[in-house]
Structure formats: structure tokens, C-alpha cells
């Protein structure tokens, strides 16, 4: 099944059920971006009325993933990495998200195989680490506890 955004004048929907039992009605053209769901639909050749269970995704993260897919579709001309990075930062700011939101989004993007979200999220994380100039700064940035005994430090 493959639909272009033009085919969404009369949108078809796929129902995705997150781990709490909440059902999200997602337009088919957005589901195209979720490789896992797309493959499940192709494999099972199921009717679009079937509910697809996503046992590892919480409903609030699913909302953010759907929002991201909509942003990507609406800004399909912006495919440069830095454009996607800006979109990711906007998504976080809208949700007033912190690092935990980033980690949860990456877990969800990996599970759902949303490549664009994975690329943007991992770039964001890499930039955050690279910006830190020392181990101390990384510890402060990501709230890591220094549990290395002093005698284990290598020169």
C-alpha cells in the first residue's frame, strides 16, 4: 500500500493502540513513515479497520511521533539535515521536552522505524555531546554519576 499526500484528500485511517489501550486514528499517509507499521500492514494484508497494537509505545510519545510525521509531510521540501534538526528542536520546545523526552522519542522512533525522527534525534544528541568540552560538562549535561574509582582512571 502506498499513498501520496495527494491521495489524502479523503484520508484513510489506521488505528494504532498504545500500551495503555489508547487508540490513535492515524492517516495512512503518515503511517507510511512508520516502517514497522507499514511492514505489518503489508505482511498481514489486513483490512485497515484492524487495530495495530504497539505494546512498547506510550500514548503521549505516540502523539509526538504522529505530530513529527505530520511536520515532515507538511515540510516535505525541507529534507536537509539541518532543517530536520530545526524541526526536531521545535517539536521539543512545543512539548517543553527535556532529555527524557528525547530518549523516549528515540526509543519510539527505533521501534516504529521512523527514519527521519531517528536521524534528527540522534543528530541532536550527538550535537549535545560534542558541545561539551570535558567529561565534567558531559556529566552535568546528562546527569551522570561518576562511579569510576580513582585507581581505575587511566592516564
Amino acid at each position, binding site marked *: 500500500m502506498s499513498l501520496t499526500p495527494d491521495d489524502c484528500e479523503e484520508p484513510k485511517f489506521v488505528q494504532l493502540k498504545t500500551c495503555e489501550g489508547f487508540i490513535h486514528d492515524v492517516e495512512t499517509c503518515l503511517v507510511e513513515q512508520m516502517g514497522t507499521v507499514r511492514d505489518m500492514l503489508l505482511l498481514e494484508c489486513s483490512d485497515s479497520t484492524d487495530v495495530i497494537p504497539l505494546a512498547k509505545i506510550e*500514548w503521549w510519545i505516540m502523539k509526538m511521533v504522529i505530530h513529527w510525521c505530520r511536520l515532515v509531510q507538511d515540510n516535505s521540501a525541507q529534507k536537509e539535515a539541518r532543517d530536520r534538526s530545526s524541526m526536531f528542536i521545535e517539536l521539543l520546545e512545543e512539548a517543553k521536552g527535556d532529555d*527524557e523526552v528525547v530518549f523516549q522519542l528515540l526509543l519510539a522512533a*527505533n521501534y516504529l522505524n521512523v527514519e527521519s525522527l531517528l536521524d534528527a534525534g540522534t543528530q541532536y544528541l550527538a550535537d549535545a555531546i560534542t558541545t561539551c*568540552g570535558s*567529561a565534567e560538562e*558531559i556529566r552535568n549535561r546528562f546527569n*551522570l554519576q561518576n*562511579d569510576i574509582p580513582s585507581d581505575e582512571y587511566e592516564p
Partner: protein
Amino acid sequence: MCTLHPEEEAHLAAMALSPSPRTLDSSRPSTPTPCSLFDVCWDDVLIPQVAVYLTLKDLFNLRCCSRTAKKFAEAAMEKRQELHLSGNNSSNIEDGFRVLARCCRRLEVLHLACCRWLTDDLLLPLLANNKQRLVAVNLNECINITALSLQPIIVECKELRVLKLSKCQWLTTGAVDALTLHQSKLVEFDISYCGAIGERCLIIFFRRLNNLTVLSLANTPSVTDQVLIQIGNYCRELEHINLIGCAAISDYGVHALTVHCPRIRTLLIRRCPRVTERSLAPLRQRCLFIDRPLLEGAHNAYSLNDFYPSSFLVY
């Protein structure tokens, strides 16, 4: 008493069962699942998609953060495919290199040019852990290693395609003989400024390098017309050749080389006094890049000897 319509009762019952709709702003549950940086999947996400963007400095910083961060950094080093330390002669580089030699297991590209601190003792462990996958090795100007380090590269790196040994004065004829025996798939080779190699072993060596496309023999005194003839006969895929400072070559050798290598696009022949426009003029019509500009009134022959190949052998 107010009674509810049956549909209203059903609606209220459904509302009681499903989570209340929330806006994107306040959409997080009250007790979120704890999630830290290293809870993100390492093999699928952190290593292939985050660690690839990190520099070695970032990885070494991470190693000092916590035990888990150290494990992550070393797991990332294990999967790293390229190591670029050319020109890095900072004060504690040897300690860092020992860590890399222990951790890196999937290296394909190794750039260590101008690493004067590099010794056999430092390099051999890294080569032992990565010999199966190495494709490109650059040891230009690594003056403090010996042919001992070259041995595992020559004998065990079966996928090697690029080898750079410029200014490695320790490179011997014996090492080149070993290369002849074991490495015939090289695509790029640099032995410029290697004065200890003889003409004979070069002649035999190039007979086997049928896939060579980039070759640098700059300032190698044993490069003669006979060597160029061999290159022309056997290295038909050659595209770029550097013969700067090869004083023994003449128009004869250049002509033999360029006639048999139709793909040549770059020819560097500065400071080759016996190469003249007699061999270069036809090449200029082929739109080769030649580093020596065409001078007006240039002589067609440096001397009568230019018509004859160089006849001395250098061992």
C-alpha cells in the same frame, strides 16, 4: 430528578474508561518511565547513529564520565571503521593510542601519517586486532616504525587496496618483495622518497599490480625508464602518477608509459630534466594534467641522450 439519555450514559461510561485527552503541552503521564542516555538501544541507535558523529576526543571524554559511559565509549571504538590521527603529535597521544589499539576491532581505514611517536610496539597490537578488514593504511613519514610493522600488513591484510609509505626510509627491497608476493590488488600505492628500494624489485613488483590507479614514486632514485616500461605494460588502469624528482627517467620511459596507459589523467614530472616536450606535447593534446607548464621556445630535446633509455641499474 434528571435522568440521562441512554446514549449520554454510554458516553460517560466510555469517558471513564479511556485516558483523558491532553494537549501536546501537558501530555506526559504523572509517573514517567525513567530513561537515561544509556537506556537508548546501543547497537541499533547509540553506536551506529550517535557515536559516528562523535570525535575521538568526545569518546575519550565519555570514557571518563562513568562506568557505563566508559563501556559505551569502548563499545563505540570497537565498531569504529576509520581512525584518523595523521599529524597528531599531542603530548598524551601514545596513551590514547594504546586504548584505541585495545578497543578498535573493525577498522578499515587507518591514517597515521606524520605520527613521529608511533613505534612498532604501539602499532603491532592495533594491527593484530584489525588485520582482517583494513582497506587503506597511511604510514607516510612514520619514521620510527620499522619493516616489522609492515609484516602483518603485507601478509595478513587481504583486503588492502591503499598503502602509503612515503618517506619511510626503513622500507627495504625485502619488504617490497614481500608485497609482490602477497599484495597484488593494490589500487593506490605511495613509496615516494624511499631511497632504499632497488630498480629490480620495482620492475618485478609492478608486474603484479594490474589494478593500480594512483601511484607516487616521487624522488625515488631507482625509478628508471625500465620501471616506467613495466608500469606501462602491466598497470593499464593507471590514472594518476607522480614522478616528481625522478631524475633518471627520460622521454623514452614517459612515452612508453603513456602509450600503454590510456586512462592517465595526471602526470607530475617536475624536476625530471630528461623529460621534455618531445614526450609531453602529444600528452597535452590528450588533455592530461601535467604539472610542468608549456614554455614558449622550449627545446625539443635536452640532449641526444634523451632518445635513449636510461641504462644504469640501481639496486
